[in-house]
């Protein structure tokens, strides 16, 4: 990911659209990956990219350059994803997605790149029994590789809530894997 210079940030804060294009190009993949993993839907993830970056542009004058731009964009994207997760109905994985998931977890050695639909099938089956909050904490910690402090910063949740949600999420997934004959 490209590092955005202070000059680009200042130009964005003064309404320079060409400077903002640099920001969009630098962060759209990051936001897409996050939304894809959280929402398990490619088209919705693209919507989130658009909504997030438009919100970033609209509020750029309020952005404090002492804060990390990446964290600020992350925070906006996570809130939008979380709102969608709360709103939408439970989305169960399809039988073929469950089958793909079983095949994926039984083969620990392979690191072959997955297509988007394969990746979706695995994530969707893995987090299917989690609440929106547990899903968010689990995804940020395990898939996005964030520390507890970073999760707290971008979600606004305190450390104890993050810990308890993560504990329940891991327990739920462990039970699911046990049913499949693993763990």
């Amino acid at each position, binding site marked *: 990911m490209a590092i955005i210079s202070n000059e680009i940030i200042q130009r964005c804060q003064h*309404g320079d659209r060409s400077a903002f294009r640099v920001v*969009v190009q630098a962060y759209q*993949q990051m936001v897409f*990956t996050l939304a894809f993993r959280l929402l398990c839907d490619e088209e919705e993830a*693209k919507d989130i*990219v658009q909504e997030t970056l*438009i919100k970033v542009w609209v509020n750029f004058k309020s952005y404090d350059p002492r804060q990390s731009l990446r964290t600020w964009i992350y925070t906006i994207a996570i809130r939008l994803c979380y709102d969608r997760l709360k709103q939408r109905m439970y989305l169960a994985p399809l039988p073929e997605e469950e089958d793909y998931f079983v095949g994926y977890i039984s083969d620990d050695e392979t*690191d072959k790149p997955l297509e988007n639909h394969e990746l979706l099938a695995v994530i969707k089956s893995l987090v299917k029994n989690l609440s929106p909050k547990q899903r968010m904490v689990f995804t940020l910690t395990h898939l996005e590789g964030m520390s507890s402090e970073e999760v707290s910063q971008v979600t606004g949740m305190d450390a104890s809530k993050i810990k308890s949600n993560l504990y329940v999420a891991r327990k739920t997934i462990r039970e699911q*894997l046990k049913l499949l004959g693993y*763990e």
Partner: protein
Amino acid sequence: MNKIDAITRRLASQEPELKDADALCDSIMDHLPPQQEPQRYRLLHVLQAVASMAAILLLVLFVRQTRDITPPREDPDYRQSLERLQPERPQLDPTIPLQETLRQLVRTKSEQITLSQLKKNYTL
């Protein structure tokens, strides 16, 4: 490493591919609305608007109060002021008989007053 960590480690190393990234970027750039002022400036604008509204409201109340010249009849202050405006009518002393009073009143020619006038001007 347990199973969950093994699965998540592999998943974390795989990023989904954003297809048509350039088209998405163009679409975002085409739909950019005007930027908003920072929150502190917005708050200042709100305060200014509230102050203007309050000033207008005070002005309207002041104008209404100065134009309102018909106070309610039930108002005790209004009643008292009305009584003060009416001419005072001398009261007769009830201890003195009426004939004596009349006599005193018509003692001189210039002071002659008919009984009907007396009744009219005095509260009996």
